């Protein structure tokens, strides 16, 4: 273990913008986003896959970014909480979080936003019970979850209505 391990250069897109960074293989994707891309919206809580604060979308799938190495994201399309709003306009899910008081301290919020975004992208017709079940993936110690569930279900309905209207 005395030999130094070479850093690797990786390229991926984050929220549509191409990035090339040089990281140690042991650096997690969460730390790569925070330290090498300056995107500190992705929060690091437990660092072993339990809390879900670091959830991001990798190639459209909601995953724990502490359980992937940055090196594994070479060539991937990544979405983080910074990619939800368009300029000053918040995404419908973010608006719903505000309306429903779905956050208090806010530490878990980026993870929940990306978890719900990923689940709704994957299945826009998701049933309320399935969505609630998916929300058990992430930990929130403030809200008691009811308001997060309300915000998620309301957003699913909003998106379905706007899709129906289109």
């Amino acid at each position: 273990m005395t030999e130094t391990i070479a850093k690797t250069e990786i390229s991926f897109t984050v929220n549509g913008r191409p990035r090339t960074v040089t990281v140690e293989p042991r650096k997690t994707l969460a730390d790569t986003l925070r330290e090498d891309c300056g995107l500190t919206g992705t929060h690091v809580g437990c660092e072993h896959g339990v809390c879900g604060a670091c959830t991001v979308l990798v190639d459209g799938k909601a995953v724990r970014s502490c359980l992937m190495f940055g090196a594994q994201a070479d060539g991937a399309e990544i979405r983080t909480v910074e990619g939800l709003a368009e300029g000053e306009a918040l995404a419908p899910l973010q608006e719903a979080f505000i309306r429903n008081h779905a956050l208090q301290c806010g530490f878990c919020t980026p993870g929940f936003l990306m978890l719900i975004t990923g689940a709704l992208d994957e299945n826009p017709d998701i049933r309320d019970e399935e969505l609630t079940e998916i929300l058990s993936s992430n930990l929130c110690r403030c809200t008691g979850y009811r308001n997060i569930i309300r915000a998620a279900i309301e957003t699913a309905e909003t998106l379905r209505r706007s899709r129906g209207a289109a």
Partner: protein
Amino acid sequence: MKPAPFAYHKPQSLDEALALLSEGAEEGALILAGGQSLVPMMALRVAYPPALIDINGIAGLDAVEVSGTRVRLGATVRHAAFHDPGFLPEPLGPMLHAVAENIAHYPIRQRGTFCGSLAHADPSSEWCLVASVLDAEIELRSAGGERRLRPADYFEGPMMTLREPDEMLVGVTLARPAPGTCWGFYEFNRRAGDFALGMALVLYEIEDGVIANARLGLGGIEEHPRRIATAEAVLNGRAPDEAVFAEAAEAAMAEVEPMSDATTSADYRRDLAGTVLRRALAAASRRTTHEAA
């Protein structure tokens, strides 16, 4: 909570991966598939492999092959594949869908793999139970050759298998239950998505009103999941009713040698073995009634 340094390899072919593994196995190089158990272990420094061989870039490893009697799943088929009950033909598709809902949480299932669970061999692994009950053939390949093991010859203990360090688990073949097979799965844990304290998977057919070809197994109870032959013997040839199910549960409770830990005694797990088995059997019989109706 940061993993120890390691060298990272991302081979593009299986041969290349096996060559890297044979070079690095002695030093402790490991295969990285979904990483949903390995990476937490590395974060906690329970595991500190000097090299990881990431197999996620190898084309074709996520292949699924369905034949008349068997289904083969390649090394990178993820848990999330089973979110779709139609992923495999009935009754296997809906059954594995019901089982998969109990595996950790949704984001973990997006990356974790079926074969990775078999390689990790946690006593509470749902897929290790499925492999045991469905007479899996576990394909182990090294640069030197290939061998296939049955679960009874493969699982050795908690997180211990007879896989050699230079062997990679490249795929698993499961027996396809006959159409119309009744099945039931029940898992008990203290928190949603947590490791199972106990779980049971049951399959049986009905011939002339009585149970035939009963297969059942328990997971999370003993050091590794396995079929419980004495309980299967109780069921075969009998009409499926509550009294027979209770008798099978008694037989299983008498047979198992449960694990014990600081929070869950062996007696508790023995009792739980009976409970999860009765509930899985009840679920199977509801499915019979439902289909006959």
